[in-house]
């Protein structure tokens, strides 16, 4: 395959990855890594580097549109980011001490269960949640655009959510992928942040978490410019389209897409754990 055709194929796959990543708050790595490593025979190190570029491109590309739409909760994102980045740094140092294959299988099973939970969950009703005193103190309660003006919501179980975010960072440091899924699940299912606010806030966070790993990826030479070029441009255009579509999308439909992508991610993780493949 010559470089022009190769770039066109990678661009197309990356556009889809950016589109789904922006809608779900999961980043683009779920699609980019297996397409490059399994279908196109790209070396794993380069696939991981391209995946990191795709996560930052999804986050930055979509977030500009999201923040303008007023969905994401910057305070919650920044507060939880402490837990995630600390977890990611700890995880990166633990990679040699922990059997990552076993971890990948366990994490895959957890994700499958969470995808099922997201799938079967009925539509949320605001107002039923009592505010967490810690959330009030930290001003985490937020609002998002609704059909008739902004809808205010409360945030609950802040400590449990914070602990899960540390776990999400730890796993992403250890396994390379999957932190976006844990972030959305922790915000949506534990802290009861509305689904769109959860996915968009996750989008803000994954970019910062990925930037924390970028230094070490660059140093190790994982980021290959010729390969990253179509990935970055494709993901950017896909994420812009996804971000435009998000405000009008029904939450139920979004949950189904999220459950499907997390299910795919879970299968990838279990596959990795068994065959020692992708990460």
């Amino acid at each position: 395959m010559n470089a022009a055709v190769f770039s066109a194929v990678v661009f197309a796959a990356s556009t889809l990855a950016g589109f789904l990543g922006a809608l779900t708050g999961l980043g683009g790595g779920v699609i980019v890594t297996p397409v490059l490593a399994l279908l196109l025979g790209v070396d794993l190190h380069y696939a991981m580097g391209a995946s990191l570029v795709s996560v930052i491109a999804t986050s930055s590309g979509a977030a500009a549109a999201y923040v303008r739409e007023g969905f994401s909760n910057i305070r919650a994102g920044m507060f939880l980011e402490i837990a995630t980045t600390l977890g990611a740094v700890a995880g990166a140092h633990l990679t040699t001490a922990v059997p990552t294959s076993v971890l990948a299988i366990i994490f895959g099973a957890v994700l499958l269960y969470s995808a099922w939970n997201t799938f079967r969950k009925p539509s949320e009703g605001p107002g039923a949640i009592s505010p967490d005193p810690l959330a009030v103190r930290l001003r985490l309660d937020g609002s998002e655009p609704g059909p008739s003006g902004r809808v205010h919501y409360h945030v609950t179980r802040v400590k449990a959510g914070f602990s899960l975010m540390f776990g999400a960072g730890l796993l992403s440091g250890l396994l390379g992928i999957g932190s976006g899924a844990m972030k959305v699940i922790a915000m949506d299912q534990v802290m009861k942040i509305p689904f769109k606010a959860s996915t968009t806030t996750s989008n803000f966070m994954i970019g910062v978490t990925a930037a924390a790993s970028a230094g070490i990826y660059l140093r190790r030479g994982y980021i290959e410019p010729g390969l990253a070029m179509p990935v970055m441009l494709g993901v950017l255009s896909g994420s812009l389209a996804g971000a435009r579509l998000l405000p009008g999308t029904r939450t139920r439909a979004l949950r189904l897409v999220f459950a499907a992508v997390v299910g795919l991610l879970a299968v990838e993780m279990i596959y990795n754990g068994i065959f020692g493949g992708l990460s």
Partner: protein
Amino acid sequence: MTDERLEQIIANLLRAGVALSAAVVAAGGVWYLASSGATVADYGQFHPEVRGPGSLGTLPGPLALIQTGLLLLIATPVVRVIFALVGFALERDRIYVGITLGVLMVLAYSILIAWL
């Protein structure tokens, strides 16, 4: 300054940064495909000698230009955190100035340790 005004400024800054990095990568991409679009693309072998900013001087022109754009892209989340810090400081929100400083310190640690 209100949260919404702050978010507006962050969003505009982010757009400018992303547009700039995309333009640089696209320019490098056109140059790269024009000069070596017909060569075989093979990334099956890992060549760890091509590394980060240190390789900008040794890479061929088109790839160095793409790498520059990628570095701009990687910088955007860091700049976002810095801008949020400024915003919280202007709001005199001490708790969030502290929290954002914490995030920045972890970021600085993980970026610095990668270069040491």
